């Protein structure tokens, strides 16, 4: 798999930002165009890994009241707990607009190492889980696997905490292999593990649990551990948790690398992943002992990633859609706006911290149904119309209008369309508007290049102008923000807008 060494075009730079960072801010892709993928990816990887972590929430160590506490106290805690989870989610959404690449990966890992708050309940564990995802997002995958299995939220979600030596619970052992590392079959269709492996591994993983009245931490109890011999992957011994991880990665390294490479390519490139790219990413994982950064790098600088046929080939997830709006407009959502996003994506089939099941969100085409599509249009409408400020809209439009433009209406309308639509504009279906441009076109004629250019340009500008003579447009006229808002909403209702 070749590295893509050409300097990136504006179109390619936007693509890279959309796939890694929820979208391109105004001017961002423009500034990156002309550089190579390798240069850009190194910079954003460095930024993602050096950005400071969000502050620990004030409530992260507030323990649940003991059983002896009154029902009022316990009810109050329950209410707080819900508020804390909301706060955690809202913060995360704001983080997504700030430390975009890191949070994009965190979201990917949330969809991979799935847990749901409905099972673990307590927000303090939710915070710890999210923090584990975030701190390991670009780290070593093997370490990540080791750590996530001992995360409290995960222990509860997949029954690790009730997996004791006397009655082993196979839930985590199975998902560890089936979903978290290598999948049931390798690339040739040969099973990666047997049922016996699952049972034996479950025994080796036993003994870990939680004791919430003292602290939120996880601990090991020898009494709950099966200390006998276990046999899996052809190895026998009095294995414990760490041994499982070591042996798994020793005996199945290739299968794990293949599975994870395929998952990364599917997520970041196209739902029908390119086999050559999978091989390259897999090789990077193996040669680096499962470091995530080099694998990601190989993926993001590959010629497969920049293949024009896969640019705009991914359906936006609800998070991509909503955060994307804000990033495109260079707005970091405030609390009210982030809270709106938190709620708005729920009927779009994505509840953060609560994927539908341990396999995560099916994603891709599943995001777009006749009900979610109408809801997406409505959500986009609200984000741009109600959950943004007119000042922000005007500042955004100003940053998108080239300085010294002699036809700002045309330049702005086309710039906005190119900025927010991932599909190449010549493939965007813009219905022909037969009504002519308004105004005194004799004395104020439209530019020749525009009149002789492709029809979609004229139709887009007509949508933007909506009857206003082109020469009357200026950011300072009455109703300017409203007109921009309306145009952005209209753009978000093109089917093309659902793709990134």
């Amino acid at each position, binding site marked *: 798999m070749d590295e893509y060494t050409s300097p990136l075009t504006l179109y390619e730079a936007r693509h890279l930002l959309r796939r890694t960072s929820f979208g391109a801010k105004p001017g961002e892709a423009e500034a990156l165009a002309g550089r190579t993928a390798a240069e850009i990816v190194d910079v954003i990887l460095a930024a993602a890994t050096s950005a400071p972590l969000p502050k620990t929430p004030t409530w992260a160590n507030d323990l649940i009241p003991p059983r002896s506490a009154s029902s009022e106290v316990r009810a109050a805690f329950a209410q707080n707990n819900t508020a804390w989870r909301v706060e955690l989610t809202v913060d995360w959404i704001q983080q997504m607009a700030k430390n975009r690449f890191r949070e994009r990966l965190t979201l990917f890992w949330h969809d991979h190492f799935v847990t749901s708050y*409905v099972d673990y309940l307590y927000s303090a564990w939710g915070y710890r889980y999210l923090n584990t995802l975030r701190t390991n997002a670009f780290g070593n995958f093997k370490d990540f696997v080791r750590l996530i299995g001992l995360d409290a939220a995960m222990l509860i979600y997949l029954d690790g905490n009730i997996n004791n030596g006397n009655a082993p619970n196979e839930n985590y052992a199975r998902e560890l292999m089936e979903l978290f590392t290598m999948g049931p079959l390798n690339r040739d269709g040969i099973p990666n593990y047997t049922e016996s492996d699952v049972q034996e591994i479950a025994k080796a993983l036993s003994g870990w649990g939680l004791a919430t009245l003292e602290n939120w931490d996880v601990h090991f109890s020898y009494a709950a551990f099966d200390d006998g011999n276990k046999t899996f992957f052809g190895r026998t011994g009095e294995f414990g948790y760490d041994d499982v991880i070591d042996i798994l990665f020793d005996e199945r390294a290739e299968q794990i690398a293949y599975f994870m490479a395929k998952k990364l390519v599917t997520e970041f490139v*196209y739902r029908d992943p390119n086999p050559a790219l999978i091989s390259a990413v897999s090789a990077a994982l193996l040669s680096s002992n499962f470091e995530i950064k080099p694998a990601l790098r190989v993926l993001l600088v590959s010629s497969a990633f920049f293949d*024009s*046929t*896969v*640019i*705009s*080939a991914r*359906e936006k997830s609800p998070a991509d859609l909503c955060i994307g709006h804000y990033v495109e407009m260079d707005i970091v959502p405030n609390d009210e706006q982030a809270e709106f996003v938190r*709620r*708005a994506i*729920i*009927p779009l089939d994505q509840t953060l911290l609560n994927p539908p099941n341990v396999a995560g969100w099916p994603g891709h*085409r599943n995001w*777009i149904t*006749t*009900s*979610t*599509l*109408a*809801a997406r*249009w*409505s*959500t986009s*409408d*609200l984000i741009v*119309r*109600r959950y943004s*400020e*007119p000042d922000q809209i005007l500042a955004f439009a100003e940053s998108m209008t080239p300085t010294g433009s002699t036809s700002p209406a045309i330049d702005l309308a086309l710039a906005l369309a190119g900025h927010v639509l991932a*599909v190449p504009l010549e*493939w965007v*279906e813009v*219905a*022909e*508007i*037969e*009504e002519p441009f*308004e*105004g*005194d076109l004799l004395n104020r004629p439209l530019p020749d290049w525009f009149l002789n250019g492709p029809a979609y340009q004229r139709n887009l500008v007509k*949508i933007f102008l*909506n*009857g*206003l*003579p082109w020469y*009357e447009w200026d950011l300072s*006229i*009455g*109703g300017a923000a*409203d*007109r921009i808002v*309306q*145009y952005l*909403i*209209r753009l978000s*209702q093109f*089917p093309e807008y*659902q*793709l990134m």
Partner: protein
Amino acid sequence: MCDHDHTSGNVQLGAGISLEDGEKHAQAHVTWSRRQFLQGLGLATTGSAFGFGASTVRAFSTSPLLQSLSRSGTDRILVLVQLSGGNDGLNTVVPYTDPEYYRIRPSIGIPENSVLPLSAELGLHPSLVSFERLYQDGVMQVLRGVGYEDPSLSHFSSTDAWLTADSAKNIDSTGWLGRYLTQEYPEFISTNPTYPLALQLGNGAPLLFQGSASRMGIAFPNLALLNRFAADGAIFDESFAPSTSFGSELSFVKSVANDSFQFAESIQAAANKGSNLVEYPSNLGLSGNLAVTAKLIRGRLGTNIYHLNLGGFDTHSNQLNRHQSLMQQLSDAIGAFMDDLKADGWDKEVLVMTFSEFGRRIYQNGSGGTDHGTSAPLFMFGGGVAGGLIGQQPSLTQLEPGGNLSYNIDFRGLYASILKDWFGLSESEVTSLITGSFTPVPILDSSFVTNTEPWAVPESVRLLTNYPNPFRDRTMIDFELERGQSVRIDVFDVAGKNVATLVNRPLQPGRHQIPFEAGSLRSGTYFMRLTTEKDVQTRSLSLVR
């Protein structure tokens, strides 16, 4: 009209309200924004409503007006023609014998000898030739000085159709949205209509097609899309995509989008069955839009409300020429439309109303134009209108602060009259859609007035807010019966499926509390409908796990 004491508490103010903000302040004197107009008429709804502080978003909702209309089964039609941008009312209905008019508009005033006189004091812009004819035929009514008090928006919202989301950035805490969210009127209908109750055309309007629930209306940004929809039953061309990976995803999304559009059959059928009986000046613009509207009406689509748009009225400069062209278009289009409908009697079923989101300043500016203003005249057409001039011509010397015209007809009173007299809604329905009492506006000929119900019948059931809401496992439905009667309470999901019948028997008078256990239902919005002999009331419930 505008109380410049902006410390008075009851109006939420937005940007541009203080006098320092100059131009924006002028805009703030929007006598009625389109959105407020539609709100007042009950057409604006929330595309997403959070109701009761719920944490679930309901992506689309219906208009209580549309629901009332669907229940009433009326065949009557209202065609709203919006003159988008702010029509200059003063040059439309001209006070041609008032010297003050010519003093303030030295170069853009309409010459006295070219107006088409309606009365000794007022005349029409010379291009409104058809309007003069319709006026003489007694089927046009001119309402003067229509306006609105307490502007609470600082910008015009040119795209708000009754099916789209609330555009107000400044939510008046006692305003429309708040009232709807706590009000009795349902967001639910028990059956999906096969035709749109409302159809909006033009103005680059948001293409909002409702999904699984509440499919009540449809909006087309422009005529080309409606024509394509009528011809193909689809909006998007799924084959217009390259045969590449992104091409196949693009086709997929378009196909889902096409599937999301309802009413294809009814619109296609009406477009095929319908026809135009006169020739229209053009098949573009307002003329084209009205031609299609007449076709759909004649084709018996069943839609009660059409909302059309003619843009370009924002005449900050070169007004004489541009306004003349617009008046010409308006006159020709409406003239043709009325003639078309009259040819086979449809004009008796249709009421046409022109409006603009605001009028313009009385003074001309330095570019031969005018800036945003306030009240303006409004026209109504139809076989059923009383005809003539209503209201008072606003004085050009006694102005509102800021140099703007006063109003004397509150547009909400106009809407209330339309709802009651034209559509035949009951008094209680009308007051729940438009709160406050307004002087009725006698638009219609008495023989066309449908509703004769004098007073609201006292409610025999009072439905209180369920609690808790949102709820996790169980919520209590709370209501009071004035007298013993049979009561039925059903709960529906957003798809209209009945998920529970809580009660279905006679109950004693007094207070009742019926629990609703959510069981294994998924999080989301549900609707509880309480039916008695005379009444149906609905509440939305919010289940959040």
